[in-house]
């Protein structure tokens, strides 16, 4: 464990995601500005930043849903965007993109089929994914009857369906109560320990403590990257929040 953490700190493992000088503009507004980042295999990497800082745009570039205006994005060694790569990662969007008229099981069936799962394997994966997020008892209910937390868990289950080696999660715990948030984090850590690479975004500072490494993002630039301990030490701060302000918001002090 300590060995893994040390390696993660150096980012010396085989790269899962490699971004070089990535720029993305919407009209005249530059949302990402020559951003360079490397995420290693098996890492739990957190992108931390306020809303509007470019986290979601960065996630979309990494997954290939969007295309960079400048620079290169490589995922698992492939130049993005590339259609076949959508098979290789599990994705959870910021909003719960679910079909409310359908039951949880029908939603899972639909997405499982999109990932090419069929027959017994598909049923088995649906059961397994639902078990992980503790929704086995609610599979037959229409999603419209779900609470916010249940919808979030169902979205997470969909991301896990095809047993991806990489999980890309955009604000996985937003709008979730503290108890559920803790249980989701326990799951995330367990998957990390079993070898899954996880890239997620958050704007909750204390969540960042759980990550192997954090990238502080602000106004489309990475202001600092490192393990929570390193960042705090570098800033001479007690908490990630202080470190974020000291390292990331130099222009405001």
């Amino acid at each position, binding site marked *: 464990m300590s060995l893994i953490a040390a390696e993660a700190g150096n980012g010396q493992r085989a790269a899962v995601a490699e971004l070089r000088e990535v720029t993305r503009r919407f009209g005249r507004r530059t949302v990402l500005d020559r951003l360079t980042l490397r995420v290693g295999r098996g890492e739990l990497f957190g992108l931390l930043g306020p809303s509007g800082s470019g986290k979601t745009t960065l996630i979309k570039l990494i997954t290939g849903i969007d295309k960079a205006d400048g620079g290169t994005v490589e995922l698992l060694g492939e130049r993005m*965007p590339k259609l076949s790569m*959508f098979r290789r990662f599990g*994705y959870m969007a910021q909003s719960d993109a679910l079909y409310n008229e359908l039951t949880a099981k029908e939603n899972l069936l639909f997405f499982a089929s999109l*990932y090419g799962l069929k027959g017994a394997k598909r049923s088995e994966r649906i059961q397994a994914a639902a078990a992980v997020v503790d929704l086995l008892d609610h599979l037959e209910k229409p999603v419209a009857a779900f609470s916010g937390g249940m919808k979030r868990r169902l979205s997470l289950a969909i991301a896990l369906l095809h047993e991806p080696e990489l999980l890309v999660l955009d604000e996985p715990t937003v709008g979730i109560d503290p108890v559920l948030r803790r249980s989701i984090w326990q799951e995330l850590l367990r998957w990390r320990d079993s070898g899954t690479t996880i890239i997620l975004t958050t704007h909750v500072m204390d969540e960042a403590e759980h990550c192997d490494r954090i990238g502080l993002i602000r106004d489309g630039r990475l202001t600092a990257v490192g393990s929570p301990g390193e960042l705090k030490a570098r800033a001479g701060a007690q908490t990630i929040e202080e470190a974020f302000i000291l390292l990331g918001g130099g222009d405001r002090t």
Partner: protein
Amino acid sequence: MRTRALAVRIIRQFIRDKRTLALLFAAPLLVLTLVHFVFNGQTVKPHIGTVQVPAPLTERLEQAGADVRSFDTAEQAEAEMRKGKLDAIVSVRGGVPSILLEGSDPSVSKAALLTIQQTVQSVAGGAGVQPAVSYMYGKESLTSFDSFGPVLIGFFSFFFVFLLAGVAFLRERTTGTLERLLATPIRRTELVAGYLSGFGLFALLQAALIAWFAVDVLGLYMEGSIWLVLLVNLLLTMTALTLGTLLSSFAGNEFQIIQFIPVVIVPQVFFSGLFNLDAMEPWLQNVSYVMPLYYGADALRSIMIRGEGLGDIWADVLVLLGFSAAFALLNVLALKKQRPI
């Protein structure tokens, strides 16, 4: 005070939504202008063919405002009528004039019949010559509903599928499920094809129900094959489906889908054949060639009133297929806006 605040807010929202504002003022003018051109065009001349009739009768018919063409044999004239070029054929058999009416549009038939009867009376000098009247298509009792019923069948299928598909695809986009879908290995073509098949099933059911109800319950005149009616209706709804999903890319909410009705749907009604296209200015008549509903309505009328088969309506079928294919392709391209690959 609170009333004022609410009114000010509504005014602000209106000003922000430029498209709604434009539509509120421009759409009534557009539709009114269309109505003006449709009903204030040229007078409709009955197209009459004559088969070896005395010269004075032909002259009188022309004086009465008819467009008259002479033929040597009845077969030649009837062939022209099948092409839709003639409304009536006048011939003389055994001293008695006989009139063959095209018959698929009661109002046109009546106008042609009236012109001929009055002319015959005046030539015969008021004597009681009763021309024998027969119909190529339809029958004397063909009502207006029989005549534009086929057009309405096509129109309602088109209209509802257009709205439904537009709103469904818009919701897919605004609820984020489209983005979620596009984060899976699905191809853009697969997505469009999926929409076509899923909605196509219900479009087909709807078309079958409408056709059955109109023919068997309401007694709509039906000469041709019900399967052809279903085929044409299905193609027409496919066009509506692909057009609806395509235009929904340009709408931000359900309200803006509704706004497509006066711009996309209403003009098609005017060019669908519900109103006599011959009454329009010739340059305006050409607009009908870009309207999918025109081809659908033409094919449905041909099948239901004239009893024509696939061999006669294949051109309409091909054009409808072409529209669907073109709109589907544009859909695939429009999805690039959501995902570059």
